[in-house]
């Protein structure tokens, strides 16, 4: 298929349909409303169902129900709406159902603003709902990668029976870039023999549930969940890195912020500085081991985020105190500029911070 120019939000919809998603339940919110709009127009044509729920709570519980019947289903929202969905997400994780949840982040806390941010990193990677659960969290940096990760995200969700979250920001949702729809690497996906599709009088009913009243049973369930999460950690980490062997300073950034870092890095290289990059593509599981590849003489790690320091914690866990960890941030919907990053790197070089 030839390249087409698409807005991030619409590309999400097209990619989901490409992956066989036929059901979308959501509630509009800026800056991702083009996605439900796209789905409302395109899904019915493909024999699917688009339903604008009365609230985010209703939408996520519709996803819970549809996922329980074994179909590919998704929802999307932006930060405050994703907060409302947390209860349902915890239930879906507890009941081990595959689905895709898209968060096109905006400034917070509360209603915040409608401009881009990365302030929901903690919520996405630590679990915004109750209980010991994990989402697979994917952070695309451009519209092509967004499309690829949506398509692969449905496979990951099915393979592990786990919700997958796409964590983008207002910028990637709104920007237009060329995309091509490609099939992901083939995975062996298990039969959905757990789905509630009707017994036909031939088998015992399947039960979708997250309630285990016997503590022994719930402990066993949790141990099994953790085993699954360990498998995901082993198999699914994605990261892009650059020049870790030579770099005097390594920038850690994800999503659109990593692109701003790349612009800064190429400018710094022209001026003779050696700067590397670690760009986690999976935010959970986090690519901690990648930081082991940084050379011993590196002067420090600069984390750049559009929040007040959330991935910063993971970077500190990853480097285990071996290098100083610095931070640059813009927040509230402001976007860091390449020049701000360049200045900061030069200060680290000069030992000024």
């Amino acid at each position, binding site marked *: 298929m030839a390249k087409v120019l698409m807005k991030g939000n619409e590309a999400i919809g097209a990619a989901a349909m490409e992956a066989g998603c036929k059901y979308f339940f959501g509630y509009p919110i*800026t800056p991702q409303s083009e996605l439900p709009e796209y789905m409302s127009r395109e899904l019915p044509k493909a024999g699917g169902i688009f339903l604008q729920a009365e609230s985010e709570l209703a939408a996520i519980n519709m996803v819970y129900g549809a996922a329980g019947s074994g179909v590919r289903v998704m929802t999307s929202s932006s930060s405050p709406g994703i907060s409302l969905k947390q209860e349902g997400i915890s239930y879906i994780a507890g009941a081990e159902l595959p689905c895709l949840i898209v968060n096109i982040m905006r400034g917070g806390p509360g209603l915040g603003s409608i401009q881009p941010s990365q302030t929901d990193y903690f919520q996405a990677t630590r679990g915004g709902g109750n209980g010991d659960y994990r989402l697979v969290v994917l952070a695309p940096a451009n519209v092509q990668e967004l499309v690829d990760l949506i398509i692969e995200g449905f496979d990951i969700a099915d393979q592990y029976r786990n919700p997958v979250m796409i964590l983008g920001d207002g910028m990637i949702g709104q920007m237009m870039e060329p995309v091509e729809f490609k099939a992901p690497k083939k995975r062996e996906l298990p039969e959905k023999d757990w789905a509630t599709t009707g017994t036909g009088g031939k088998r015992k009913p399947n039960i979708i549930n997250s309630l285990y009243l016997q503590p022994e049973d719930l402990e066993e369930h949790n141990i099994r969940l953790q085993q699954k999460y360990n498998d995901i950690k082993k198999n699914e980490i994605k990261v892009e890195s650059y020049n870790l062997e030579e770099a005097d300073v390594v920038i850690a950034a994800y999503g659109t912020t990593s*692109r701003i870092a790349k612009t800064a890095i190429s400018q710094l290289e022209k001026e003779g500085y050696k700067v590397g990059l670690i760009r986690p593509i999976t935010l959970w599981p986090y690519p901690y081991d990648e930081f082991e590849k940084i050379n011993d003489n590196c002067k420090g790690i600069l984390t750049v985020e559009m929040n007040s320091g959330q991935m910063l914690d993971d970077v500190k866990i990853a480097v285990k105190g071996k290098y100083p960890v610095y931070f640059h941030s813009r927040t509230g919907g402001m976007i860091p500029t390449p020049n701000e990053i360049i200045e900061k790197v030069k200060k680290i070089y000069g030992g000024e911070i």
Partner: protein
Amino acid sequence: MEERITIAGFGGQGVMAIGQLLTYAGMIEDKNVSWLPSYGPEMRGGTANCGVTISSEDVGSPVVVDASTAIVMNKPSLDKFEPTIVEGGKLFINSSLIDQKAERDDIEVYYIPANEIAEELGNMKVANMVILGAYLEVAKPVKVESILEGFTKVFGEKKAKLIPINKKALEKGAEVVRKQMAATV
């Protein structure tokens, strides 16, 4: 090669549209492209702008903070974006609606009476295409044919009948700017 273009004006002047045309044309020519709109609690008649990057390399930051070119369709846009242009960059001013001159002398400035030309052509809506034509003539980031090829992709097949008038607007903009360039040499 990397062109970073800011296009700004009132909502309704078609600044987003010519940004998309440029982006599409860049894609058709196999360049790396990115289009990022400003978005906010805005309304018809409010300000609108977008940033377009056309590059032979991967596009880094999609945010155009140091434009190689700015196209401004109204006065608030001139005030806001003139300072953001890199030294030696280009500024295209819609002189039909902006009676003020650029302040900087370290950039190339072109004054295009886009609305007047559009009116002469009989369609006020093509003012954006007039100024785009001028920009294409000077900077040559993409071919005019690629812009026309992308036209129905951006505006839909139903608008194909408007290609001739839009083509004329591009040509007229190019003609006006050629005269200005000849006058300054």
